[in-house]
Structure formats: structure tokens, C-alpha cells
């Protein structure tokens, strides 16, 4: 994959007017997507910058650096763009998902374990189809675990193979 070869990070342009690479997402689009899809307010990301490495993978970094920068990592991967449905990463959802107020699905302990093991499961959900933030109770409060894909009454676990656990 191209993003495993390139070590160049390009900061996302603020808006479409400043865009120099045609398909590159803008900061405005990323903030709008987090707000529309999950209800995460743009203010949450005020002190963060967004960067693209390769084609489509967006990284979130807590700070500012001159762009482009040629290094091996910058903050954490946050979402995959340049595809019809943008997809957040498990890590970004665990880090920022508690700010979400829609397209969240809360699982029982038993279902949460199946989700973490990578299993798909049938479940009813009132919200939109597509990528959801999956939560369960941990230490008495809802805590985001990762990303699920909801279609046709089924929640598919998007937990990457390396993060799956039999708990």
C-alpha cells in the first residue's frame, strides 16, 4: 500500500479554495464529517492538525509542524478518506469517541466481547446505516471500544485483526 511506502506527511488544506492536490480532504471537510456523522463538535479538534500520508489515510497530530514533513509517524491514524464512506480508526474512536452523541451503539458485556473478538452479530439499531462508534460499560461509564459497520440489522466488527482479543 502506498501509505506504507511514503513517509511524507502533508497537512490538510483548511478549505477547498486552498487545495492543491485534487482528491485530498480538507480540514473543513474532516471537521464537518465528524460533526455530521457522530455529533463531535469541531471545537474538540481545535488544537489538533490533520495530515495525509499516502493516498487517503488521515493522521491527527496534537500540534503544529511545517508541511510537508518527512518522518515515520505523526500523532495517530484517524480516518480513511478518498472512498465513498469515510471510516474512522479504532484508535481515534477510543481517543475521541466519548464526544460523540449519534451513530453510537452501546453493547452488553456479552456482545462487547463478541465484537472485540471480531464476530459479526445481529442487533437492532435506530440510527443510520454505516460506520458506528461501538461502546460498552467500563468502570461504570460508557467507553468507546472501536468501529462497527451496521447494515441490514447486522453489526460487523471492524476491529483490526491485530487488536482482536478473546476476553
Amino acid at each position, binding site marked *: 500500500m502506498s501509505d506504507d511506502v511514503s513517509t511524507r506527511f502533508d497537512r490538510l488544506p483548511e478549505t477547498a479554495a486552498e487545495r492543491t492536490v485534487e482528491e485530498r480532504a480538507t480540514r473543513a471537510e474532516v471537521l464537518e464529517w465528524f460533526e455530521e456523522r457522530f455529533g463531535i463538535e469541531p471545537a474538540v479538534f481545535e488544537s*489538533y492538525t490533520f495530515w495525509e500520508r499516502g493516498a487517503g489515510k488521515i493522521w*491527527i*497530530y*496534537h*500540534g503544529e*509542524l*511545517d508541511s510537508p*514533513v*518527512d*518522518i*515515520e*509517524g*505523526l*500523532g*495517530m*491514524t484517524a480516518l480513511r478518506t478518498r472512498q465513498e464512506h469515510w471510516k474512522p*480508526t479504532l*484508535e481515534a474512536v*477510543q*481517543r475521541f469517541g466519548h464526544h460523540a452523541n449519534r451513530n453510537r451503539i452501546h453493547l452488553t458485556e456479552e456482545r462487547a466481547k463478541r465484537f*472485540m473478538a471480531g464476530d459479526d452479530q445481529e442487533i437492532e439499531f435506530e440510527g443510520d446505516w454505516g460506520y458506528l462508534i461501538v461502546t460498552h460499560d*467500563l*468502570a*461504570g*461509564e460508557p*467507553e468507546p*471500544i472501536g468501529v462497527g459497520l451496521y447494515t441490514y440489522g447486522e453489526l460487523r466488527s471492524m476491529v483490526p485483526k*491485530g*487488536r482482536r*482479543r*478473546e*476476553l
Partner: protein
Amino acid sequence: MTVLERYEPLVDDVAAFHEACERSLPAAVRVNTIKTTVDRAKTALEDAGIAFEGSPLPGLFRLPDDQPGANWPYVHGWLHGQEEVSALPATVLGPQPGERVWDACAAPGSKTTQLGALMEDTGLLVGTDNNMGRVSALRSNAERLGVTSLALTVEDSRNHSLKPFDGELYDRALVDAPCSCEGTVRKNPDVLAEWSYDQVAGTAGVQKGILGRAVQATREGGTVVYSTCTFAPEENEAVLDFVLEAESCRLVPFEIPLDATPGITEWAADELDEPMVFDPSVEHAKRIYPHHNDTGGFFCAKLEVTG
């Protein structure tokens, strides 16, 4: 002579030293305060039925019965498996929120992510390692623990470039150097079979280069911490002695919540033609032996940059 017998002249209780080195090391975890609080992590451990005990180091727990990894608080990045001595250098460095900090030997990231937590995930944290595979492991740990202020470079730390980071010097740097690792014998007994004096001598050269570069890359008045998990004075006090001579810095005293002995000022060994003599200030460094605190073995020194 076995590798550990080489260090008998340095320890107070030779039998206890050998006996501790043969016991396996109890598992320990650090609470990742980027993603939770110590109190919530305790509740999650209790809910998961995992026994834990306090540690002299704040935010760490010993797990007498379990290994970290297969439980909810770990999966959420609330916990990171990290033994007690490994958590020392970051606390000795004491980075503050908003500072510029370099971790010169960062992979696989236990100490890097701890620095990020101490900085409250703000400021600039640069992690460097020369091995791409190890940097991938570091990236995975940093993402699981939710560190967003970390920039990673793959390069030889002896030639670390500040160019991607505006060329500005760091406030603090950590050199947790690659070493002969006898101090990890309780986790990995194979280290003793792999030990050779040639490797000690070669590694010491690398350590001097990295620590020297860390001092150069840190501003006047800034702090550099040097640590290893070897007992070998060639890789500890001798490295400090070299850098004190070559760079603008001095060793400073510091306190830790574990029992330790001072750095040594003289060292004689079969491999040496004549004894080594070190700058008297290396006594500010700390040697930690496995039998003193039921931990791994460790060495830690704190330097102030003076020019």
C-alpha cells in the same frame, strides 16, 4: 566466571543478588492517564477480577497472578505492561506539559508513551529509533495508548536531525540506551548466553555517541536522563565520564522511590588492562539491583546541560 559473577564486587549481598536474578519477575502495569484515571483503572481491574498490588512508583500496579494483555482495561489502552524500573527514567526526566522532549531510543515505546502521559499529551514529543520493525511496534503501542503529540523518526540517534522540528533545541531528552541487558535476566535468561565483552565495548561506543548527541540537542539548562538495564560500568559510569568530558553538561543528584546505590568511581575487571577511574560526580547516578526492590536491574543518571 559467569556474567553475573563479574559484578559480585559491586553488590552488598552476593547470595541475595544471585537468588533474585534467578526468580522470574512479577508482572506490572502502568496506568495510562491519557485515557483514564488511576481510580477508574483500579475499578476496571476490580470489575475484571484481576488482583493487583500497589507499587512504590505512582500509577503502577503489580499483578501477582496475571499477565497484562487479555482484559478490558488493557484493550482500551488504560494499562500498559511496564515493569517498575522501566518506569523510572521518565519520572526522573520529569517532562512538563507543552515542552519539547526527545526520546532517543524510543522503541517499543513504554517510556515514550509514559513521557507523553506526563506531558498530558501536549507539546512536542519526538521518538527516534534506528529499526523500522521496532518503530512499527512503537507506533502500535502509541496508538493503543492514544498518544497524539508524538512524532516518530527512523534514524541513527547519533546523527539525529532537528530539521523536521524547526531546528529548535529540546527542553529535555531521554537516552534509555541499547545495552547488554543483564538487568532483564529475570524476564529473559537468554541475555546471559548472548553476552560478550566485545559487545559491551562496541555498545559503549554507540551509547557515548547517542548521549553526546542528546546533550547537544538540548538547550542550556535543560535536562538529559541516561539509563540502561545493564550492570556493566563500561556502559554506565564510563559513558557518563566520557560525555562529561566531551560535552557541556554536569551530573545532578535526584531522588527515586526505590532503594539504590550510588554510581561507582572505580572499576577493575579481567577484561581491562588497568582499572577504570571515573569523574567523582558519577556517584550522583543510581544503581538498582534486583534483590533491593524485587525488580529488574537498572542504571539511571540525570544531567543538566550547561552550554
